[in-house]
């Protein structure tokens, strides 16, 4: 059965790499990749949306994905 899961995703082209999201993430699921953009570690992300709210450039969106194994 396929379950739906929420995940954060950042628009690399508009990310300013300030790190607000990484700091706010309660699961430490975001890191700033080489000072260029925010990279979400999907296996850790629970899609809570804290990062999307805090992101000053509003480049993080929460998407719904279908995942195997519920």
């Amino acid at each position, binding site marked *: 059965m396929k379950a739906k899961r929420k995940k954060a995703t950042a628009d690399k082209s508009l990310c300013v*790499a*300030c790190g*607000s999201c990484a700091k706010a993430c309660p699961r430490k699921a975001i890191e700033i990749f080489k*000072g*260029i953009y925010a990279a979400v570690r999907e296996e850790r992300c629970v899609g809570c949306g804290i990062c999307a709210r805090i*992101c*000053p*450039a*509003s*480049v993080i969106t929460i998407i719904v994905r279908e995942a195997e194994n519920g």
Partner: protein
Amino acid sequence: MAEKKSWRDYMWIISASYITLGFFNILFGWLGLACFFIPLLISVFGGTKSYCNKYCGRGQLLQLLGDKLRLSPYRDIPAWMKSRKFRYGFLVFFMSMFVNMIFVTWLVFSGSRSLEQTVSLLWTFRLPWHWAYSGGVAPGVAQFAFGFYSIMITSTLLGIVTMLLYKPRSWCVYCPMGTMTQAICALKNKNK
């Protein structure tokens, strides 16, 4: 669950102190150079934006004011403000103003211009600030302090205005140091 705070989370105290101290003694303005050199050195030698990510006191201060004090409406910043054109345009403008300030400092150093004991807000409005200077250093040294403090006050003001309009750390979107260090990181890590 609240995470245990680190000493890095208290850098906002330094930012707030800087603004306060410059009100009483303008020579503290010189300390603002740290906000200029530290992020640059970290990005040039480390290839990261650790300064923005972990240490920036201004970012923390704006987050605190906007979030904890609930002063920020958490509205989305307009698209043009996060465009490359605006971010790099603002960087160029900001650096031009910085060079202009250095030039004025040099004129005072060389004696062809007298010390102006004012703080320039938004590069336009000159506020009297004479109480914060009581001599003791070369006029050029004091002029640089007035100039640098003006830049810091102006950018703090812009940060507060965009915090009040959009999200707490909206300043980070167009912060010239942030734009510059991100560009340095991109260049440095291009071939890795």
